[in-house]
């Protein structure tokens, strides 16, 4: 069995990212920045209707605009559009101005149809249908374990609650898209993507080009969070425009496009019932839930888990449970995999009701979790986190802090289990001792370049700066998409393999007993004139799946304005064998920041009358900013024996739940839906005249009334 070095010099330490200088100097070229000679500017025409039959689209006026080189339809003939923002046509022109002029010249004839953009309205039997042939609600899926009725009968207390999570939009800073260039029957695509191989396969399939005639590049990409696995409609349109115009085409979406059409985290509505003994031991769990992934589960730009399902009762051990989940379709943009798909909504429901249970039983929320969490590691993490955070001194009876600005604390746990694999890599060792590692993976900003350099430097006895890392080119040995927090677990064993093989080969050719470190150059000189090129692949035993984490949050809630401020977050995360602490810490900070957005601000707002998304921009779709940065304390459990694990997703799972519990602890009333906006806080406090304390639930309850449980 292969083993990682026991006394590492770089692994588990902090190495600044090897591509950092390029990123801070503007030298890093993203798909957004690629400008081949003669590159045209591409734009997409989108549906202005939430639901309509498109009878004709006339591109001729667009083609007459000066500078326009190509105009194409997304689909020929009469067609249906199912959301505001659905792609209709695309134009390529010599300048942005000409392209925008041309877009406005296109004539679209449509027959608008009734639409429905709210989940609870879409579930009604008389609602306008998103797909004419099927109802908007699916048949539902049931899961059952043990005897829930018996479990509830055995319970000393039963708690019920209705919890809801919003539609969250990925909003990477770099929008979706790329540059496509056809030349001599071959396509080169610089694409902003989490999976260059998948984009290559998608483009070759759609354009009926041999896979060896399509090359996808993406050395730098400006964030994806699960939404950038495929070529997408925009990638395919760029390629088709390039084919039609005979010139390279750059097609990057606008922020408006990005908000509407390339993915989001589905909404959920969870009616939960939990039974427990007086000592806190859970005896039964039941849940009826709905979720909405837009006009359909999946979609043109989606990848991964695109339905609205989520695990329940998530990480907790409940002997008897029954769950039933139903999908609802509305006339809105499709969902896509989003950082730990399913988990943040799952966490919000179960962690909220566990705190309700803790209050009812008079048990400390941390103790209640330790009692019902089957993972021994996470039980220890709760104790570690409690000590770092000062939980015992901070946790008080809900709503008991004095004054108008109340403080509260909350906690939540997470789990993530996706194993790595399926990666090949190549090493080229030159006679002068220089080393290049090539791998068809990609760096989403998680630090893949750096992680490869760290592992190779460690094994070869060199420094990370000595390693030239080449990734994100579909001509390199293949690796999978970067999703599921499995890049590091997929890539590092393959790098281990090629480095081990290179050492063995160099020992053979040089006759030296050890070729690493100080002997490296001497050994390489013995190669003569030809570099050593070797391939390797993912091997078992170096990486693992099954990480756990715990977070605790302290908030301040102004009971006069309803404003919530996150003061502190403590994160204890099992990181397996940590590869690079500095970049891992950035990921943990990022997960926490994203969790703050999910907890307090982010929400896609749909307008029932027009069927339009009301906030497709950063003024009104609110992301967390630098003013929201709390005191963050991250502790990684760095355990060699647990092998390499990815942490990008698990670190964002429990943040919003911990914050929501802290808000409830602060004010002594619970906001049961995300985001926790000031209006909901004030309503929960009974300070909004005429408004029910759980106002949104009146509408949502109709969801649960429309279907038999």
């Amino acid at each position, binding site marked *: 069995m292969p083993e990682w070095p026991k006394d590492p010099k770089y692994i588990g330490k902090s190495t600044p990212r090897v591509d950092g200088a390029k990123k801070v100097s*503007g030298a890093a070229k993203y798909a957004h920045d690629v400008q081949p000679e003669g590159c045209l500017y591409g734009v997409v025409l989108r549906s202005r209707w939430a639901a309509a039959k498109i009878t004709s689209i006339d591109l001729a006026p667009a083609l007459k605009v000066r500078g326009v080189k190509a105009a194409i339809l997304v689909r020929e003939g009469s067609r249906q559009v199912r959301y505001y923002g659905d792609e209709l046509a695309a134009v390529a022109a010599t300048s942005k101005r000409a392209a925008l002029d041309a877009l406005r010249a296109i004539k679209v004839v449509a027959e608008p149809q009734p639409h429905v953009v709210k989940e609870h309205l879409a579930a009604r039997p008389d609602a306008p249908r998103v797909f004419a042939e099927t109802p908007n609600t699916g048949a539902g899926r049931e899961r059952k374990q043990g005897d829930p009725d018996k479990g509830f009968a055995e319970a000393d207390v039963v708690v019920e609650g209705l919890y809801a999570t919003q539609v969250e939009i990925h909003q990477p800073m770099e929008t979706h898209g790329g540059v496509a260039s056809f030349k001599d029957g071959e396509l080169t695509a610089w694409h902003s993507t989490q999976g260059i191989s998948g984009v290559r396969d998608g483009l070759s399939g759609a354009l009926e080009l041999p896979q060896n005639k399509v090359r996808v590049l993406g050395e730098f990409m400006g964030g994806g969070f699960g939404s950038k696995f495929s070529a997408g409609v925009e990638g395919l349109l760029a390629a088709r425009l390039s084919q039609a115009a005979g010139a390279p085409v750059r097609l990057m979406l606008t922020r408006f496009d990005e908000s509407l059409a390339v993915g989001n985290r589905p909404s959920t509505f969870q009616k939960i019932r939990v039974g427990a003994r007086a000592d806190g031991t859970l005896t039964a769990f039941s849940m009826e839930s709905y979720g909405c992934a837009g006009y359909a589960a999946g979609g043109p730009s989606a990848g991964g888990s695109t339905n609205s399902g989520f695990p329940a009762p998530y990480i907790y051990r409940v002997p008897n449970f029954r769950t039933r989940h139903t999908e609802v379709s509305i006339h809105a943009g499709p969902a896509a995999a989003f950082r730990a798909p399913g988990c943040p909504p799952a966490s919000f429901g179960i962690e909220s009701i566990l705190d309700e249970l803790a209050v009812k039983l008079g048990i400390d929320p941390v103790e209640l979790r330790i009692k019902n969490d089957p993972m021994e590691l996470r039980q220890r993490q709760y104790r570690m986190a409690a000590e770092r955070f000062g939980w015992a001194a901070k946790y008080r009876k809900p709503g008991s802090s004095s004054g108008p600005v109340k403080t509260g604390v909350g906690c939540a746990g997470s789990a993530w289990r996706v194993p790595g694999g399926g990666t090949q890599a190549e090493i080229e060792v030159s006679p002068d001792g220089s080393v290049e590692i090539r791998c068809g993976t990609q760096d989403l900003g998680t630090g893949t370049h750096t992680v490869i350099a760290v592992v190779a430097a460690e094994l070869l006895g060199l420094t990370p700066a000595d390693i030239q890392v080449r990734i994100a080119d579909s001509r390199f040995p293949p690796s999978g998409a970067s999703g599921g927090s499995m890049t590091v677990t997929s890539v590092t064993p393959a790098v281990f393999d090629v480095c081990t093989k290179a050492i063995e080969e160099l020992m053979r050719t040089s006759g030296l007993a050890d070729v690493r470190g100080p002997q490296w150059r001497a050994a390489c000189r013995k190669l003569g004139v030809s570099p050593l090129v070797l391939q390797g692949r993912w091997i078992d035993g170096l990486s693992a799946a099954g990480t756990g984490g715990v977070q605790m949050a302290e908030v301040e809630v102004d009971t006069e304005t309803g404003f919530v401020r996150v003061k502190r977050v403590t994160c204890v995360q099992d990181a397996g064998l940590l590869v690079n602490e500095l970049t891992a810490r950035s990921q943990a900070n990022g997960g926490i920041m994203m969790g703050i957005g999910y907890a307090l601000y982010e929400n896609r707002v749909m307008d029932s009358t027009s069927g339009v998304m009301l906030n497709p921009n950063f003024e009104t779709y609110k*992301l967390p900013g630098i003013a929201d940065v709390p005191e963050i304390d991250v502790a990684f459990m760095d355990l060699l024996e647990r092998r390499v694990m990815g942490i990008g997703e698990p670190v964002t799972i429990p943040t919003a739940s911990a914050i929501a519990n802290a808000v409830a602890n602060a004010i002594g009333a619970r906001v049961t839906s995300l985001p926790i906006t000031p209006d909901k806080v004030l309503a929960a406090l009974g300070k909004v005249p005429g408004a029910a304390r759980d106002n949104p639930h009146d509408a949502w309850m109709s969801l649960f009334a429309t279907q038999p449980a």
Partner: protein
Amino acid sequence: MKPIERSSGGAGAPAHVVSRRAFLRGLGTAAVTAAATSTAAVAAEMEKAGGEATVGPGEVPLEFVLNGKPVRTAAEPRETLLDVLRARFGLTGAKEGCDRGTCGACTVLLDGKPIYACMRLALEVAGASIETIEGQSLAGGLSPVQAAFVKHDALQCGFCTPGFVMTTTALLRANPTPTEAEVRRACSGHLCRCGSQPHIIRAALAAAGVATTTTSTADSLRHDHA
């Protein structure tokens, strides 16, 4: 047509150049609708309505100082500074994240002050000095702010990074020893979806030689977990 001259002093627009917002504000609904089909019609409409001299709608010569060097180009009145920097000068360090002044990824310095290049018409910067991220490490090495961003990993995907670096650079020139609150205020016009803000605060303070505060502490607990 003569190049537009910039009024001396300040970063404001010269009186005869209309900002993007003022342009829209100054037009009635009819004229805005007309914009959809004919920029020439809009120009005529504006001249009629405001009585001000108009330029365009074609390209107009433009001169300004870019990263310390005088440059000449031409731009249509409707082109933003960001589009001119990226498309006409190939300076792609400033990014388009929103194209409406909300994300900060396009930040450059206009006479030393950070501005959103997507919210400035190119012709407004005639005669001014523009600094972009590409001008920060001309000597081959990284500036202290850039080096601190790398050292403290104040970036992940890196797309927003040039904007944060430019604003931090401007802040430290004006205020060499800022407090954490001042860093937060200065950078409040920037978004980062990777959530690198904790390390950005740390890097900005480190570049200024100010002791790092409690924001973002971390431990790696190797074999210390029992």
